[in-house]
């Protein structure tokens, strides 16, 4: 089966620092795939390379069979890749509904000037967009919150809004950057179910960066472990849990316990 996303030998340097080093990672359609690793391992940088925010220095990334490295971010989004951010980056001074409407941008096709005379096509498209946005709001559990300013929403709601905004464009691939950061166990469990739902109900392939091992081991089918920009392990949850290189990377040399029962989120955000 053709890979949905194929990143091969991707290298990204910032001056002397090699943030991502010869990384190869491939996803199948419909997978939930996690990228884990200590802070500073290069995971978010890798996301940024996929979405075109950074240009890679070496390697190639193919999405749905076509190379996307070198394309600008907006085109990559329009091809079907969406993302959320480690530090939530909503449009704070816009309402929840407006945020989602912006997310729908790639799907709206009416010529901009038609808004001036409110053509039939414009009106229909806007109505449909609003309906869909409200549907998405409900889907993430924020029904009725449409008129709330994004910056006034509680943290958990903001996270979910960001996801709603990301899926508004009907992406094929969704990159989630630490979706459960800052959440308590209850919220984390809910978010985990929610992410699984995204794949089950909407058929979206998920690539997520996570620190919380309950989440990672709970829903991922494949995991890549990164450290210092390189892949140090790859496999399914069972394989990863017992992998000594992984344990060492997280807990330092000499640590013997498995990763199943605690999450290494003690370090500050990297």
């Amino acid at each position, binding site marked *: 089966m053709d890979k949905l996303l194929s990143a091969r030998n991707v290298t990204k340097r910032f001056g002397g620092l090699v943030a991502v080093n010869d990384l190869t990672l491939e996803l199948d359609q419909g997978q939930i795939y996690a990228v884990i690793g200590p802070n500073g391992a290069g995971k978010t940088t890798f996301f940024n390379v996929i*979405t075109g*925010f950074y240009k890679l220095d070496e390697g190639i990334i193919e999405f749905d069979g076509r190379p996307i490295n070198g394309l*600008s*971010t*907006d085109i990559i*989004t*329009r091809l079907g890749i*969406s*993302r959320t*951010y480690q530090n939530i*980056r909503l*449009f*704070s*001074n*816009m*309402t929840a509904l*407006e945020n989602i*409407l*912006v*997310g729908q*941008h*790639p799907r*709206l096709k*009416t010529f*901009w000037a038609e*808004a*001036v*005379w*409110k053509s039939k096509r*414009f009106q229909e498209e*806007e109505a449909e967009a609003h309906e869909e946005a409200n549907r998405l709001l*409900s889907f*993430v*559990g*924020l*029904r009725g*919150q449409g*008129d*709330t*300013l994004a*910056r*006034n*929403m*509680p943290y*958990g*709601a903001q996270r*979910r809004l960001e996801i709603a*905004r990301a899926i508004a*464009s009907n992406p094929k691939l969704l990159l989630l950057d630490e979706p459960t950061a800052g959440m308590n166990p209850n*919220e984390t469990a*809910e*978010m985990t*179910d*929610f992410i699984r739902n995204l794949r089950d109900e909407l058929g979206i392939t998920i690539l997520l960066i996570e620190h919380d091992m309950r989440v990672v081991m709970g829903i991922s089918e494949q995991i890549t472990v990164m450290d210092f920009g390189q892949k140090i392990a790859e496999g399914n949850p069972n394989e990863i849990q017992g992998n000594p290189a992984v344990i060492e990377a997280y807990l330092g040399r000499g640590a013997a316990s498995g990763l199943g029962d605690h999450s290494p989120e003690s370090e500050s955000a990297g």
Partner: protein
Amino acid sequence: MQEKTFNWRNAANYGLIGSVVMLYFSMIGMVEVFSTRDLIGDFLNMGHLLLFGGAIGVMLFAAKRISDHGGDFWLSTLIIGAVSPLLPILLVIMSLNFNMRPIFINVSPPLNELITLGLEPTAVGLVAFFFVTLILVALTAAFTRLPGRIRTPLTTTIVYMLSIGIFSELIIQVLNNPLIFRGFRLAGLFFTGKSLDLIPAVVLFVGFFGLFYWRGGREPKAAVEPKTRPHLDPRRRWIQLGLIVIGLAVAPWILGLFLSQALFEVGRFVLMGLGLNIVVGYAGLLDLGYVAFFAFGAYVMGVMTTETTLNMGGGVVNFWLALPIAVGISVVFGVLLGFPVLRLRGDYLAIVTLGFGEIIRLLALSDWLAPLVGGAQGILKIPNPVFFGIDFNSPQLMYYLMVIGALIVGFVSIRLRDSRLGRQWMAMREDEDVAEAMGINLVQTKLLAFAIGAGFSGLAGAIFAARLGTIFPHSFSLLISINALALIIVGGLGSIPGVIVGAIALVGLPELLREFTEYRLLMYGILLIVMMLIRPEGFLPAEVFQRELHAGEDQPEFSGAVAD
């Protein structure tokens, strides 16, 4: 953030600042010039307001500080009230003993008379001045202590009374207009000359206060559902819209020739403001060279409709044909000027666009392009438009043209704002990188903002040229760009009513207060600074910001359950 309480030293400082302000306005001659405008009878004039304004303003700031940080309120009041009058008093004393006029030309007997409140001998006047200042400061202090129930209507009343004072000329014109009031010279009831008579003033004051006090009591203070937004109720909107249209239509006939010219200027800046509002307010692109597109519109109109310039190709063209071409060329240049600045942000964008504006002005001024655009002499004898035989040769008719232009432009702005493009602009303004990650093509979005903004400006320029009949490079200076930018900020960024308010405040008022043209730039600057200090979002901020301002109320707390 200092938590020090507001002690006597702070109070003395504030008093000193107040005193310096009073001194400053006196010494630059502003107080004297302002005093030529009487407000009530012949004993209260604008000069008094300005003079005592320093002390009053400082007291207001101090009261806020005290309420935030604690301190002995009345002692501070006393100190401020006592220190403020000192410097002006000192000034008077010094001017009596030394001839200060060779250096400080405005320190003169009329000024002294003002400060001493017209009383003789001087010493008595100075003592009176001292106590009047002290009392006014105390009254201000007491005012800040009033319960909101009284203070709010009182503030509104004062604002209304001041507005009547400032707009007296306008009001007199309206009241005296034979068309409405059938020959009753109503103005005479209230005004003598340009100032209100004392008794009508008192009556109005009491009446306004009573009205606002009563209305303040009526609104239910309980939390109203935030979902229903009454100002969007369609029927009310149509009525409001209708009234505005009627008002606009009859204004020039009621207000007379001179004020129609003022209205024209306001209209022109409303048009420009709306265009700049799209670039700066919606798209967040700081453009300081906006006058360039205004110039394009004006010059294209000038070149195409006159014989004195080398208009390429055809002969003289009439206004109505030249108009869309002028707009079109402005749009083209909007795109051209937009391309090089696509990657620039913030300050860099501002400086480069400022440069463009100046380049255009200098090109217009140059000898090289003089055969085409007239160089320093500009273009003369631009004909007025003719519409079905009616020659638009009066300010009133050209005003209509500008208003119609503004209405069209406003309409387009609103439609675009509430569309996908509007959201593109908003998203780009909020966070350019994330906007791009939403699939928004930044190049297209920015160029559209520049192009549309330029088109609106070009339209204003073309109409301006036809009205003025002559255009010089001088009319296209940086100051115009700054003016336009200032008025959309003061009026409220991103908000269309805000643009109108800003234009009235920054363009209309100076026209009404033309006695004070000498100090126009100073007042301008002060207004900008004060606005940034107390209300940076502008008079009428866009709904986004208004929602933000009311954020504390009525937002249902959300617990975080996913299931719904």
